[in-house]
């Protein structure tokens, strides 16, 4: 299987008033195409920091230590930057200079953010801007990366001829694989973007067939004014928009030029929301976040993440703030998307039971390292690391004969002052002398199942 993301020896620390907080201490991880990778750990294990590092959204006091590698689709982004080596991060550390580096990384990666990697955050209540319409918040993501597609969609409707429509209807009625045939048709006729719009109408459940046909007929649009047309053509052909950039600053013209794209963004947003089973999507786009329930808002967040067809979506505790029933709906949705769209997911959660529902592989994090990673059944039924075992024993399971749960003694380590050797040794029931001094290396115990513990290996 092809690997889409590889992380090597990632170390991310935070500079704080009370010392350096070592959030990630050498994370190695790979993500394959089309899989859901679960990332489990308690608070302070660094799982959220890992997600933010991939997105390059770390706060300004974060330090990425030299030697860290984040390789996305065979490109190592961090190699362009002069990162600080580990030994230089001490009392006299130049925080200002590091802030500049972090800002460079953040700006540099803006073009992949939302396009190749996107993220869904934990709190659906606070993740959406309360003052902007749902539709606009989705459109914004589209405008940032896919204005070409938006322009093509508009042009495809304008270029649509009567004959084309008749042909489309023929495909719709007779074809066995409508999706494939439509795709071929749009490529052939150079009507990129029309196929999505037709499919959206076909998939609508609230219309009868006759109405659907009528709607496909009415897709055809009139020519717009010449200024707008040439603007759209330039964007669709990915040419520099030169003078239009200036024209877009003039309020009235902006409504004509950018406004056309925004309007199209809303159309696309409706299609996205409908794909995520949001009822009345055409009304929802004009609503504000406070008018939606938590589950709906989380779907909107997922729609934003999906907007540009990314390769990877990072889900940071997407269901922790939701009730069980809604949580299940979201989990189901994620599984569906995985099969439908061939996207890789990183699913961050503190709740192993949730991960068990959707993941293909699970990585267990502790003290800023991945202590165990493997296929889901291996992690749950043949776990190796004492911490994983402890975690599994601490979850109450629903079964007729109730087993008492066992807790892990002690508390999570203070990452400003992490213990030497294996991070888990102060709480580990199998602690040996070697654990106190040396950091264990990752061992492939069985196929695809890695563990960092001295109990295994030689």
């Amino acid at each position, binding site marked *: 299987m092809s690997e889409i993301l590889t992380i090597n020896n990632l170390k991310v620390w935070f500079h704080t008033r009370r010392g350096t907080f070592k959030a990630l201490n050498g994370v190695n991880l790979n993500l394959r195409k089309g899989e859901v990778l679960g990332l489990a750990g308690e608070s302070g294990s660094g799982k959220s920091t890992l997600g933010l590092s991939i997105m390059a959204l770390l706060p300004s006091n974060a330090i990425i230590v030299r030697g860290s590698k984040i390789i996305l689709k065979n490109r190592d982004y961090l190699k362009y930057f002069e990162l600080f080596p580990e030994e230089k991060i001490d009392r006299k550390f130049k925080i200002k200079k590091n802030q500049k580096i972090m800002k460079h990384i953040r700006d540099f990666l803006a073009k992949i953010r939302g396009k190749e990697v996107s993220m869904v955050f934990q709190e659906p209540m606070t993740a959406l801007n309360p003052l902007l319409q749902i539709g606009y918040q989705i459109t914004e993501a589209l405008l940032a990366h896919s204005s070409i597609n938006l322009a093509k969609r508009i042009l495809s409707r304008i270029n649509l001829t009567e004959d084309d429509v008749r042909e489309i209807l023929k495909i719709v009625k007779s074809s066995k694989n409508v999706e494939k045939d439509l795709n071929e048709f749009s490529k052939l006729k150079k009507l990129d973007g029309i196929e999505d719009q037709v499919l959206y109408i076909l998939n609508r459940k609230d219309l*009868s067939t006759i109405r659907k046909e009528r709607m496909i007929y009415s897709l055809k649009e009139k020519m717009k004014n010449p200024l707008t047309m040439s603007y759209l053509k330039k964007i669709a052909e990915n040419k520099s928009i030169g003078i239009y950039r200036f024209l877009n600053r003039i309020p009235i013209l902006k409504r004509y030029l950018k406004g056309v794209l925004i309007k199209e963004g809303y159309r696309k947003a409706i299609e996205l929301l409908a794909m995520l089973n949001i009822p009345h999507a055409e009304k929802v786009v004009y609503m504000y976040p406070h008018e939606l329930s938590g589950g709906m808002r989380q779907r909107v967040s997922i729609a934003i993440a999906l907007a540009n067809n990314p390769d990877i979506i990072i889900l940071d505790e997407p269901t922790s703030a939701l009730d069980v*029933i809604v949580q299940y709906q979201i989990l189901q949705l994620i599984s569906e998307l995985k099969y439908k769209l061939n996207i890789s997911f990183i699913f961050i959660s503190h709740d192993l039971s949730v991960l068990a529902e959707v993941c293909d592989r699970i990585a267990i994090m502790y003290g800023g390292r991945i202590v165990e990673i493997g296929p889901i059944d291996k992690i749950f039924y043949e776990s190796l690391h004492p911490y994983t075992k402890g975690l599994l024993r601490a979850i109450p399971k629903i079964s007729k004969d109730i087993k008492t749960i066992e807790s892990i003694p002690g508390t999570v380590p203070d990452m400003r002052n992490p213990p030497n050797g294996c991070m888990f040794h102060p709480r580990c029931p199998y602690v040996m002398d070697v654990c106190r001094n040396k950091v264990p290396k990752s061992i492939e115990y069985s196929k695809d199942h890695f563990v960092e513990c001295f109990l295994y290996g030689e």
Partner: protein
Amino acid sequence: MANVIIAAYNLKKYFPVGGFLFSSKQTIKAVDDVSIKIKENEVVGLVGETGCGKTTLGKLLIRLIEPTAGEIFFDVPEEIIVEYEEALKNKDTKKIEKISKRYSFLNKKGGELRRMRRYMNIVFQDPYSSLNPRMLVKDIIAEPIISTGYASKKEAEELVFKLLEEVGLTPEFAFRYPHELSGGQRQRVALARGISTLPKFLVLDEPTSALDVSIQAQILNLINEIRKKYSITILFISHNISVVHYMSDRIAVMYAGKIVEEGYKNSIIFDPKHPYSKALISSIPRPEPMREKIIINLQGEIPNLINPPKGCRFHPRCPVAFEECGWTADEVFQDIEYIIMRRYAEQFNGIKRIYIEDDFTISVEYEGKNLIEEKLKEVLNKEKQELRSLISIKNIKSESTKIKIELYKFVEPEMYKSKDGINVRCLLYREKK
């Protein structure tokens, strides 16, 4: 048989909603007509989604907030409860009043109430705001001891150290402020405070929701230890059903202000009766990746409690709802309008307007003399599977230029006893006449 420690009948709590200029008469029916009995030494789990009223119910039981209506008995002789229930059944108002006057927990006032507070307490979810940041741990723990007159100030100091040890903290914690403690330690302090007067009844409101898994396990085991040692009766409120199942003997499921099902925990978890409990329990995530899943997918959202649905509050989302579950004209109207005006608009050209006649009749006015009635019947029949509300249509009558759609009258569900001792509030389980 164990004694009943707390019994509540027909509890209601309506919160007023602030309105335009002068407060309107609208209320949020947070808890509506709930009866619950908890026996000595029992742990009752209360589960439900956010906003279903489970926390309100917990607070009502220990009178942290006053109920709008209803009756609570706390630690009264068994005979009285039997007598009261008898009177309720026979609607013997005189007797009800007599018993209430003498034994009701709601009639206790002032000093008497304060002294009774020694026998009950509550532990809250958020360990960060439930401890006063400007008090020392020892004062926090000692507060209920002194306030309820359980012990003198001097004795309280001694007790504090004993309690700290009881919850697994060292004595020096007595002289710390809450902000110096971690989440788990704070929850231990809150627990120590909760048991400081050796209460008979303790409400635990999501005590572990804010904690990590490994810490949660520590606290849950601590609660179990303590309750066995001091034989405390517990109402365990949580949205985490696995935790509730682990902790309790009986489970009650709440939905939209009502208890919809209640019974022995394994019967509820492994064989739920109410359609809502079925859906709820089927969607619990479990740490067993390869298990077979039977999923009941629910449509729609939790109802607004200002204007809850009539009849069974679950009926608009219920996959098995039938004629009498609580459908009213305004619900059916929306679906009929959708069918006529949008989905099959081209088939119903002559229709002038659709309107609600009364609670159980909808009228459709049309022009001309096409066969609209037959078509409507056919379409409505076809869509019954998709749109559950259409099931409540009793008959469709034609009257000159309008069609009258009549609905079944609904029945308010009560608690029915099913075979394995579960009480269910669902018409499917009422005894057939």
